[in-house]
């Protein structure tokens, strides 16, 4: 999985971090101090399609069927998250109780082509 740089045009992971202080959310979110959202961007040429990840399941089967039937020229492979991790968050809810929860699949760890 590639990390996006200035000269990377292929499918890669772009780091994107939001500091809760910058959006005035630090008064209700106790921890962490920010959110590493990240996202995927870049090109997915045909030779990269079918890279491991979520592609190795239902989607891969569909795309392989389409390729086998020669319909692939009409379809582009997409650059999508293939690995994500949860975000642990501690915050005040509307009744000023403190809540700690793990939200699954919130942080993009790596990207790949479908």
């Amino acid at each position: 999985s590639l990390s996006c740089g200035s000269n990377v045009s292929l499918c890669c992971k772009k780091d994107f971090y939001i500091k809760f202080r910058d959006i005035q959310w630090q008064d209700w979110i106790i921890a962490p101090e920010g959110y590493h959202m990240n996202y995927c961007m870049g090109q997915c040429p045909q030779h990269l399609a079918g890279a491991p990840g979520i592609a190795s399941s239902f989607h891969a089967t569909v795309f392989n069927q389409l390729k086998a039937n020669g319909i692939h020229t009409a379809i582009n492979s997409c650059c999508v998250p293939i690995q994500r991790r949860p975000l642990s968050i501690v915050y005040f809810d509307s009744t000023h109780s403190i809540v700690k929860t793990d939200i699954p699949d919130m942080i993009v760890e790596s990207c790949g082509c479908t």
Partner: protein
Amino acid sequence: SPEQHGADESRCPSCGMPALDKGSEEQLLTEIAKQQILSKLHLKERPNITHAVPRAALVTALRKLHAGRVRQDGTLELGNTPESAQTRDPAYEIVSFADTDHADSAAGRGGLAFQFSKERGQSLQILQSTLWLYVRAAEAPRGKATAQVYAAGPGGANRTLLGQKQFEVKWGRWHTFTVTRGVQAFFDSGDKRLRLELECQGCQELAVLGSPGNSSHQPFLVAQVRPRDESHAIRRR
């Protein structure tokens, strides 16, 4: 479509949308992130914090929790709960501080009130719930005491015993009471405020601290909660 990709650098290669300028893109992504967090926490909007919980009370409560480790600089080191990180319906922990300015607390009956926000129609399973109380002796500590925690019904009627504990009287110490059953009954009911009452034999001279002056000893209740998945219920026919 394929025509939109390739040489045309002004278009997003992933989705064919027109490219945004850097400022607008950052603004859009921030907005998406905000909406994503609120939606995952089942919140329509960010909670409006009208009064802050005293920092000392917050730090004490978090230090008592196994997962929230407080660093020297006061920030939190967070760890994922292994089980909840893998499931779609994660368990979460709630810490609620006793409402010390509420009439129940002022009544002198050892009354504590806790308020929880409830989502309409959501069924919750209480995995474990513990009441934390800081008890200190007014005079030289001696002997053992027995404390009981009751859930009070509306208007103080129909009290239910939730837990009982015998402990050594010390100068000042935190005590825990398991109140899982009572908290589950509360979440199954339509009430918004959980009222608990304390009784103590052999420890009339003890004080349960909860006044604003003793914010680091403010009583609190911890609950591990999981949304109840009705689809997994087993029925026998």
